[in-house]
């Protein structure tokens, strides 16, 4: 016991472990929060979901459906208040008094949640789905049972023995299920708490860190050599290491998952946690008779079990490979294989056991409880949860056992070969260039790589393309469809097509009693106007290539990047925070460690160190630029595409004032060049401060105040802030359009940056400008 507490204190109760844990918690909460906000839309009040859920939980089925349907109709009217729409609703909702609803709408007598009509509308639609799903639970179960019964009886459908056995198992499982009174329950909180993709990934990364702490710390520092002379054997030592690791993993997993719970609870609440699990939207195929509260507790326990299993496996990899770097590569390989198996194997395959019983799938912990899944083991169906638990228990135990025994053997071998160090071991002196040492100092010791990696995970988890139907309203959708046809250079056929199409649709509109073509007509009209404008540009332009390039451009993707919208503000904030975190330590590390005095007396210590540090600064700025913006560029290119890169930027209405000579691609490059310059200017200032203060933390706080605060203020809506300091570069759009005030400001900033650079150069290299030589007496 004493040994365990000692281990625990040594490996995990030290500063770096605690800081890591605190960072983990902060990142987890922040990432969950941000991803929820992004999903719901930053402009809308996210608490409205909770408000609506609470209202609906107080209603019964008919009340809830009536309420939601009425709201949907009213919101539809709010979006398109026209006589023809009302006609459509009358046929679509015969049970509702549409006229009365219209009257209510006119009086404003209806509920607003987000104040944004189409968001409210999609919210109500979603809730209607949830309400219907909850109250149709009994029918759902019946249908599953019926289908299973059918499959069981008619062997024609069943091609393998597994299918029949599976059907009869399904039949039994669902038949014996006794869940009553499934009602509507608020689900968003539970989903966010247990189904978000962020927490498992973060904890997995954390698991690797824990392994490094447990194992490599001692090994690298050769404490093991001392420890093995202790009274207690190595076996006990390794056991206590493992147990202390399990203890730490359990605590940190629990705390982290709880932090996700806290965020989810604050955002959405957990609804009625005494209701059966099946009341949560999407969980109704679960066959476990537990309440939502029980599920939340079980989830934590399962999570802890999975992480203990994974960290045992990781530690096993470390112990066998016995080199931290290769160990990490090994862990990544194992996880990569698991990922490929999970994605590659079909769910009905004979080998689907490898799809589901695998480390990657285990990270999706809640599935074991909420999904009904039988695994094919030699053609016998076995419940997933059972296999999951068996694998985890057996796996953990096996890893534990092997770890202890391997490490025992290993220690004995090194002991023998070093044999009280009579035989001098062949030592390898690391030979690397100055540049690589500099990289090691600036990016590994100064944890830039970890920061960027965590940020990448956040980006991957939060930024993903969405379907057009999720983000576009009807008119935008029609516009997109037309653009798919029209996109490309203007031509007479396109003009003719538009005009003919207009006539055709107008004819249809006349025949149609519901006037359902109004939107389309509006879109065509706007397109015709656009066509005219482009033709005018064509006439104005006198260069043949420009003329040829004048095109219809689908603007949506470009607009997100080329205007000061949410994306631009958000990315500017990200970029400035990252630069501050990554650059603050680069110069400070020498002063802080007192190594400045050492390296500056050497031959290459001044100039080379200085320039390499500058190169690293550049590289980091570039990586930051890429990690911040690339995911968004990919997202928008998937959502709406970036076509017509050769076309003049003036083809887009928002940029009509720019000269025709500038193409979209040129603007794109120019914009990102400006952003990159902004990052470099910031980095140069930070480097100077860093060299003077000699403390990364102090530097970071100063630069946070100087650079991140303006970005944050303008992010939170103070428009004026977007035109000052670094935001000039980070936003870039107004600078790219060559607004005079901003151009002057940016030039001043760049000059100041160059001055800073020169000062830093002189200071760091101890250049003496004026030689004050006294004539020798």
């Amino acid at each position: 016991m004493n040994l365990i507490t000692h281990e625990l204190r040594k490996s995990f109760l030290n500063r770096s472990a605690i800081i890591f844990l605190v960072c983990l918690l902060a990142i987890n909460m922040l990432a969950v929060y941000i991803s929820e906000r992004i999903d719901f839309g930053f402009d809308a009040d996210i608490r409205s979901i909770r408000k609506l859920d609470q209202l609906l939980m107080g209603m019964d089925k008919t009340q809830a459906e009536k309420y939601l349907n009425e709201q949907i109709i009213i919101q539809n009217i709010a979006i398109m208040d026209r006589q023809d729409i009302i006609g459509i609703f009358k046929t679509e909702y015969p049970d509702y008094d549409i006229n009365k609803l219209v009257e209510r709408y006119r009086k404003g007598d209806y509920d607003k949640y987000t104040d944004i009509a189409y968001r409210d509308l999609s919210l109500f639609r979603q809730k209607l789905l949830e309400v219907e799903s909850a109250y149709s639970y009994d029918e759902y179960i019946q249908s599953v049972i019926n289908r299973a019964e059918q499959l069981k009886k008619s062997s024609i459908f069943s091609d393998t023995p597994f299918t029949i056995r599976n059907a009869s198992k399904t039949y039994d499982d669902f038949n014996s299920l006794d869940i009553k009174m499934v009602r509507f329950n608020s689900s968003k909180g539970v989903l966010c708490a247990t189904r978000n993709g962020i927490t498992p990934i973060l904890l997995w990364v954390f698991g690797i860190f824990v392994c490094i702490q447990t194992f490599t710390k001692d090994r690298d520092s050769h404490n093991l050599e001392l420890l093995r002379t202790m009274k207690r054997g190595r076996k006990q030592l390794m056991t206590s290491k493992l147990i202390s690791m399990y203890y730490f993993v359990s605590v940190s997993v629990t705390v982290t998952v709880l932090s996700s719970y806290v965020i989810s609870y604050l955002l959405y609440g957990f609804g009625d946690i005494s209701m059966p699990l099946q009341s949560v939207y999407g969980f109704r195929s679960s066959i476990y008779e537990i309440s939502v509260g029980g599920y939340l507790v079980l989830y934590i326990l399962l999570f802890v079990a999975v992480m203990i299993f994974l960290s045992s496996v990781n530690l096993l990899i470390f112990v066998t490979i016995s080199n931290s770097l290769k160990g990490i590569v090994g862990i990544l390989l194992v996880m990569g294989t698991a990922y490929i198996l999970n994605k590659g194997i079909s769910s009905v395959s004979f080998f689907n056991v490898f799809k589901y019983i695998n480390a990657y799938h285990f990270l999706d912990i809640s599935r074991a409880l909420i999904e009904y899944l039988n695994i094919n083991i030699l053609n016998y169906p076995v419940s997933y949860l059972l296999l999951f638990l068996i694998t985890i228990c057996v796996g953990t135990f096996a890893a534990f056992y092997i770890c202890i025994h391997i490490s025992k053997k290993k220690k004995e071998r090194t002991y023998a070969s070093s044999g009280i160090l009579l035989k001098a071991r062949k030592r390898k002196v690391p030979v690397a260039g100055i540049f690589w040492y500099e990289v090691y100092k600036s990016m590994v010791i100064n944890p830039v790589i970890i920061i960027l990696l965590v940020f990448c995970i956040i980006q991957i988890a939060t930024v993903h393309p969405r379907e057009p139907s999720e983000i576009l309203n009807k008119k935008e959708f029609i516009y997109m469809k037309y653009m798919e046809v029209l996109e490309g250079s203007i031509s007479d056929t396109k003009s003719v097509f538009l005009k003919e199409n207009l006539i055709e649709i107008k004819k249809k509109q006349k025949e149609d009693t519901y006037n359902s073509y109004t939107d389309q007509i509006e879109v065509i009209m706007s397109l015709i106007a656009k066509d005219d404008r482009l033709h005018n540009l064509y006439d104005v332009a006198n260069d043949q290539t420009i003329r040829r390039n004048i095109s219809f451009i689908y603007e949506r993707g470009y607009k997100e990047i080329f205007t000061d919208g949410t994306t631009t503000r958000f990315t500017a904030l990200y970029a400035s925070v990252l630069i501050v975190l990554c650059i603050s330590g680069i110069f400070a590390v020498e002063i802080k460690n007192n190594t400045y005095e050492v390296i500056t007396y050497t031959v290459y210590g001044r100039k080379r160190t200085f320039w390499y540090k500058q190169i690293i600064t550049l590289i980091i700025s570039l990586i930051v630029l890429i990690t911040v913006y690339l995911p968004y560029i990919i997202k928008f290119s998937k959502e709406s595409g970036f076509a017509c890169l050769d076309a003049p930027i003036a083809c887009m209405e928002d940029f009509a004032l720019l000269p025709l000579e500038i193409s979209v691609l040129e603007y794109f490059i120019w914009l990102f060049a400006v952003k990159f310059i902004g990052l470099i200017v910031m980095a140069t200032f930070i480097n100077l401060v860093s060299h003077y203060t000699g403390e990364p933390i102090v530097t970071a706080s100063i630069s946070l105040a100087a650079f991140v605060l303006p970005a944050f203020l303008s992010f939170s809506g103070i428009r004026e802030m977007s035109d000052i300091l670094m935001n000039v570069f980070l936003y870039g759009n107004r600078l790219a359009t060559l607004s005079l005030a901003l151009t002057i400001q940016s030039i001043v900033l760049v000059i100041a940056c160059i001055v800073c650079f020169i000062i830093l150069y002189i200071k760091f290299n101890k250049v003496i400008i004026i030689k004050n030589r006294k004539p020798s007496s």
Partner: protein
Amino acid sequence: MELKINGICKTYGMIKGLDKFSATLTDGVYGLLGPNGAGKTTLIRIITDSISCDSGEISLNGVDIKDLGLSFRSYLGYMPQQDGIYPSFTAAQYLSYIGALKALRREEMNRQVEYVLKAVNLLEVSDRRIGTFSGGMKQRLMLAQALIGDPKIIILDEPTAGLDPKERIRIRNLISGYALNRIVIIATHVVSDVEYIAKEIILIKKGRLIYHDTPDRLCKSLENRVFEIKTYEENLEKILSRFEVCNIQKTTESIIVRILLKENQSEKKDLYGYDYRMIRATVEDVYLSVFDEEREKELIK
């Protein structure tokens, strides 16, 4: 090789760090002695071109080191007073990094790193992280760092602070071995570190050079002033108040007190009645005589 320091002045605001310091150094060990704040580190920093001086110049073989620049630094090995290490480097990595900074060729590196590690007795822990080292181990690593790359001018600022006696002796022998064809400057307060290996001793006080001579001649200057008195416990008070006491040694039956006569005291007059004998002065006595007079003068003022 000849390192010539000529009239160096350096002020920090109001404080005079160095005041017209001049000396000429050739191959061999130089002991730079002085109390805290005397200006040793300041002098060393100026020699290593870490800080610039207000006036004066330093030249190597007749060429100003500012003009030599890079090639001057290629001669240097410098161990600063404070540890300058990266806690997450291993000892071998650190040395190979410094070696690379000193423009060592890759083929040389392996041999050099191993050699200096062995010299400071750190070979066994060469791939441990420096962060896990003890104070004395870090100190030795700093020395190794100064020695790597075979420098011709080795400057050590308190190299033996925090070392155990065995290591202290090892290091001392190591340094004297190095000094055959190199200039070695050792700044220290520990007189015994330099007493026997130094070719010349430089005493520095308040930024000014006080003495610069060989240890022998320094000791000669105190001839007839160092005595040992054999006495008993009850007389100790009186002796302490009267004489400058260097050492008190207790034996089973009596006490032996080593004293230094002041300028105005004489053997005949003041030691009358004691059981005393004259002994040879050591550098430590010189140090005490120089820096204690100082204290007294201040007291009188």
